[in-house]
């Protein structure tokens, strides 16, 4: 009783300092997030060039966004990129982590090297790899900017180089937490190493696998810098109606281009695309949360 009274008196003493402790963050948070978010939702229902000349038009923008062939194309392209990269990144990252947690020589050095690309920013990464790809492709008289398939796999390679080390770190943490006595028991019972891997190790690292799968999925959906720097969406195809579709352009870049490089008249549509994009990405985040909660309850 005395204790909670004491805690309460601290609480009321602290409460008075609201403006000092929360004021700066709340002010910046309103400027940097809350207000732009609310205004963004509102503007998706408006025609506008600048925020001041917004004119309410209802859900027209959403209709235009969803029926835009470039937006549809980039949605499927993004989904494909995200899923293909998810599979490759996680399989390779898990394999590397699995091998590095065996007692091999130089494991620390390997870990350092594999993680290193993660610190290089997306724009710089894109230009490093566009130099390398073009260096290889110039021998065949082509370029990463000229071929949709090459652009796709090029981006997958860049994503793998950047993210495998990152996912590897999470997997290593998971693998090191697998109880040693479980592995020993499996060995004494005569399990082969494959049996041990699939029956003991993998079920025990499921939480890490969940984190990594969702992380690589949302990373894939949100990818922007690497896409911009590597191909910028090139090459494009011309539609029968004269509009163009960039064939290696992901959702984030499509939204950006609709805002800033198309005519300013399509900004309402771009904002509606951004809201759809937000619902998609937030949906993935909530799915992850729900899934991990469910697992925690079960355990």
């Amino acid at each position: 009783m005395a204790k909670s009274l004491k805690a309460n008196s601290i609480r009321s003493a602290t409460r008075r300092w609201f403006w000092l402790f929360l004021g700066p963050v709340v002010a910046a948070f309103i400027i940097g997030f809350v207000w732009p978010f609310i205004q963004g939702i509102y503007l998706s229902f408006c025609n506008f060039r600048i925020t001041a000349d917004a004119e309410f038009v209802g859900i027209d923008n959403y209709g235009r966004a969803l029926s835009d062939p470039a937006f549809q194309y980039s949605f499927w392209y993004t989904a494909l990129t995200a899923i293909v990269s998810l599979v490759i990144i996680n399989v390779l990252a898990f394999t590397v982590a699995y091998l590095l947690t065996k007692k091999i020589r130089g494991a620390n050095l390997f870990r350092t090297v594999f993680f290193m690309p993660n610190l290089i920013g997306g724009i710089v990464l894109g230009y490093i790899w566009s130099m390398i790809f073009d260096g290889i492709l110039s021998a065949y008289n082509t370029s990463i900017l000229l071929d949709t398939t090459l652009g796709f796999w090029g981006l997958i390679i860049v994503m793998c180089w950047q993210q495998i080390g990152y996912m590897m770190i999470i997997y290593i943490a998971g693998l090191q937490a697998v109880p040693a006595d479980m592995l020993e028991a499996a060995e004494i019972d005569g399990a082969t190493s494959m049996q041990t891997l699939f029956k003991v190790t993998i079920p025990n690292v499921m939480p890490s696998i969940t984190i990594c799968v969702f992380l690589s999925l949302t990373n894939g959906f949100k990818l922007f810098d690497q896409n911009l720097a590597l191909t910028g969406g090139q090459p494009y195809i011309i539609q029968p109606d004269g509009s163009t579709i960039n064939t290696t352009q992901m959702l984030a870049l499509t939204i950006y281009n609709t805002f800033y490089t198309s005519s300013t008249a399509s900004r309402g549509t771009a904002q509606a695309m951004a809201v759809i994009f937000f619902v998609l990405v937030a949906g993935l985040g909530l799915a992850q949360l729900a899934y991990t909660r469910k697992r925690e309850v079960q355990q």
Partner: protein
Amino acid sequence: MPERIKTLASKHRGLVVVSVIMAIVCVIWVLPVAAVILNAFKWNTFVKTDTFALWNAENFAGWSNFITGVTFGNYNFWLAAWYSTFITIVSTFLILLFCSMAAWYITRVDSIWCKIIYYLCIFSMVVPFQMVMFTLSSTADQLKLNTPWTIPIVYLGFGAGLAIFMFVGFVKSIPVEIEEAASIDGCGPVRTFFFVVLPMLRSTLISVGILEIMWVWNDYLLPVLVLDINQYRTIPIHIQYLKGSYGTVDLGATMALILMAIIPVIVFYLACQKYIIAGVAAGAVKG
């Protein structure tokens, strides 16, 4: 018994094979960086055609790419480096200071407003930047936050979510008794926070700090939309505009600038590797 020795021997051989394979993969892994170093010292015309050729008398350019590089694209690279450094340091400092203060207040006072702010922070973590980019840049423009000196406020606002989330997670694990003892000794809330709580937050401060440094230093889209790029460029903006502003790109000079841009990152990584890997693993909760 001999059988056991045999399996041990084959296991050992297996580990050696794995080591060798890993070493080869590692060499492949650093090849892109090696290619940057190689081409940063080659004449422009050789970068595209002889990308993987080693240096020879014909293609070796010495430091000339670096000399053209720093004034390339009508913008001084050192100015971009200075803005990048300033924005990164100040933004990280603001985020660490104000978000740890906010997280402590939120956890200890726990009023309805605190809960609202906390859940808004979690919400902001799943919002992609494209959702707010147009309105954020116009808000920043109106409020004159479009200079390197004021953009840290924008970073504080947009980055607050993750930082507060991580700090709250840690503050919850600190027993409140320590703060009670400080209060009995006559410490007010402000002194309690700065002299008792903040020192205990050290490891979380490092983790969050590293995440913020990596984010702000490498960020391209936020500064390019908020800053007036004719006047102010960060390193990623500068590198992106080398390609945009020129019809033909001097690839040798571009590689020289990229090398200068990644050297500090690699030095930073090698120096604080332990903290970086721990911090990244801690921040993995972010979607």
